[in-house]
């Protein structure tokens, strides 16, 4: 389901001579790993727990007992964790129809979620009903996890809250199942095949290196989001200037747990089979395997593995909500931030160069 108003067959570009041909098999294996072992199962897993969340909300919301609350919260956390594991995939079907933002509108600088949620609740209470299509047309800020978190952390859940919670859970389930089916291998126009067949040129990628570059950029962005949005923003300049409510999902206190999930997912995405013991190299795939083809690349891979092992160990020590730590126990967070910074330096510098990814001086967005 490649909805593409402006798509050009790669053949036309080849004929025009504007792009070089040169089928390059060098990234085929890395691409196959990232598609088949990471993105496709990642979205499948997300779709599965999002479906469970939808069923749980339908079954449990409205019962004012502790057991129902716990079941709701557990289903929410399962789905949120599965989302954290694919959050770094920033290209492909996730880009259609603002899906990224509809799943998780965050950071929410202008407090859009609160405002849109209040408006929606008033509409529901006045008797307006929504079907799934109507709901998808409402503000992006109420369609995903942050709005659901607000509802589930309220003291009392009224009928309108549960109607909205059901809509949100249904919406997340629908989007996640579409992400999964649109990536599917072997389907007509499946996004996976755009990448798996990139070595002979596809509609989107002139060769497999160009497809691999998309994955590389997702890896870079994943590290960037961890550092800049999830740590630097809530940390602020000092303990006095810390901003606890800027922590991701601070109401449920799992921000640090999500960072651990992000780090583990990024390490696997990069090609480390067992991120907790990254240095033991008992499995190398993807970019890791590609780097290890020679000594110089092997040293870069070693440096990356060292940082991932350190980062994951460090994130595992965080046993209190990040929103509290930013004010009174900053050092463990600052250490994690430093390690992510080192990973970013290696990625943007030696790794990009070794893999042959050219990052221009002038191609940053917004200039």
């Amino acid at each position, binding site marked *: 389901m490649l909805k593409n108003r402006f798509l*050009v067959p790669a053949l036309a570009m080849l004929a*025009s001579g*504007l792009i070089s041909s040169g089928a390059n098999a060098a990234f085929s294996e890395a691409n196959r790993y990232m598609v088949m072992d990471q993105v496709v199962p990642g979205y499948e897993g997300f779709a599965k727990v999002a479906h469970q969340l939808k069923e749980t909300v339908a079954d449990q919301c409205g019962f004012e007992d502790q057991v129902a609350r716990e079941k709701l919260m557990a289903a929410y956390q399962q789905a949120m964790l599965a989302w954290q594991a694919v959050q770094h995939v920033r290209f492909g079907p996730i880009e259609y129809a*603002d899906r990224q933002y509809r799943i998780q509108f965050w950071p929410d600088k202008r407090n859009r979620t609160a405002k849109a949620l209040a408006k929606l609740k008033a509409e529901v209470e006045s008797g307006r009903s929504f079907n799934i299509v109507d709901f998808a047309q409402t503000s992006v800020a109420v369609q995903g996890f942050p709005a659901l978190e607000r509802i589930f952390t309220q003291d009392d859940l009224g009928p309108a809250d549960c109607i909205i919670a059901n809509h949100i859970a249904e919406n997340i389930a629908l989007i996640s199942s579409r992400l999964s089916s649109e990536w599917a291998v072997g389907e007509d126009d499946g996004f996976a095949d755009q990448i798996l067949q990139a070595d002979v040129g596809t509609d989107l990628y002139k060769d497999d290196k160009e497809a691999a570059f998309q994955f590389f950029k997702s890896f870079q962005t994943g590290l960037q989001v961890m550092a800049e949005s999830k740590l630097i923003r809530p940390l602020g300049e000092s303990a006095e200037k810390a901003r606890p409510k800027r922590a991701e999902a601070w109401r449920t206190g799992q921000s640090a747990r999500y960072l651990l999930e992000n780090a583990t997912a990024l390490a696997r995405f990069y090609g480390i089979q067992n991120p907790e013991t990254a240095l033991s190299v008992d499995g190398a795939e993807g970019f890791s395997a590609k780097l290890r083809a020679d000594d110089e690349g092997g040293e870069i891979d070693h440096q990356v593995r060292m940082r991932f092992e350190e980062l994951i160990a460090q994130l595992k020590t965080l046993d209190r909500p990040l929103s509290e730590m930013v004010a009174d126990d900053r050092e463990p967070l600052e250490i994690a931030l430093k390690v992510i910074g080192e990973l970013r330096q290696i990625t943007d510098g030696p790794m990009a160069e070794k893999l042959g990814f050219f990052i221009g001086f*002038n*191609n940053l*967005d*917004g*200039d």
Partner: protein
Amino acid sequence: MLTRREMLKQAITAACLAPAAGYMAVGEALAGTVHHGFVSAYADQEGAMKLALIEPDGTVARDWALPARGHAIMRRPKSHHVAAFARRPGRFLLVVDFTTGAEVARLSSPPDRHFYGHGTYSPDGRFLYTTENDYIDERGVIGVWDAIEGYRRIGELSAHGLGPHELLFLPDGETLVVAVGGILTHPDEGRAKLNIPEMSPALVYMNARSGQLVSRHQLPQDLHKLSLRHLCVNAAGRVCFGLQNEGPKSEFPPLVGFHDGTGDLRLLEAPLEIWQGMKNYCGSVAYDQSGTVAGASSPRGSMISFWNIETGRHLYAVTARDGCGLAADTQAGRFIATCGTGEIMRIDVNRQMAITLRSPGNHDRRWDNHLLAL
């Protein structure tokens, strides 16, 4: 008590009544000196940020240290001064004399404001207008500086939208045209974009004196993720604009368009492989000397493409690795382009050829996004 805007109006009115006296008073009677060089910001081998005066043959005649990464440069009319603006979200503004090398002014954006990287002078050379982010109130503003009074900040105008980027004067000398990118950012968030689902870019015309909105033009809703960023204006007042796509990267919408002040924004046509080759990103646009050929660079796609702006016909595309800076050369149909690889090239659109003036690869000067023809 006068409001800031009223003070600004008075100051500008006074200036318009006696512009010549203003110049004589500071001894700047330099009208119309011809110089065929170029100016661009760059990063040197050690990563230091600088500004260079480039001779027509591609050699560097002079350079200046910049406090941080620069972006665009603008020449002050009727003078030898050029202003260099900090790249988003930077705060410096440096003005130098390109003939003597002297520093004329070194300023910072006011508290709670940062620059977006572009600025332009009033045609009489008195006022400098800079695009800025008021990140506390989350609105785009145009800062106004008095060049005669040591670049004193005399006020600011609304940019009539979020994320104003490049701005220029129309030939009437009174109307500013502003590329309003529509993207919300905050310096605390680095370069992250905070409002993509609801971004609302526009081409804005406003009165430079009063700040009043003349008109605001937007692309159709299904193209609302095409951010307006770069501009050039020819003598007839036709505005050519360059876009960057924040929508799905698997779609390839047109990235260059034009407008004559009224009616809908028009997008240029080109073979689809041109849009695909530009990789959803246009880094700068420029007219040639005649104002009939418009060029648009894409550093991400390493391609520069040219159109006849009167007929709308696509003329030529040339490969320029990390090529972004683009400015008119002295003859019609010719351009000079600068690249992040260090390359400087002369492009002749009529003869469909490009020659290298300075070769890439040594990385001693990685040219930044914009090139100014003096």
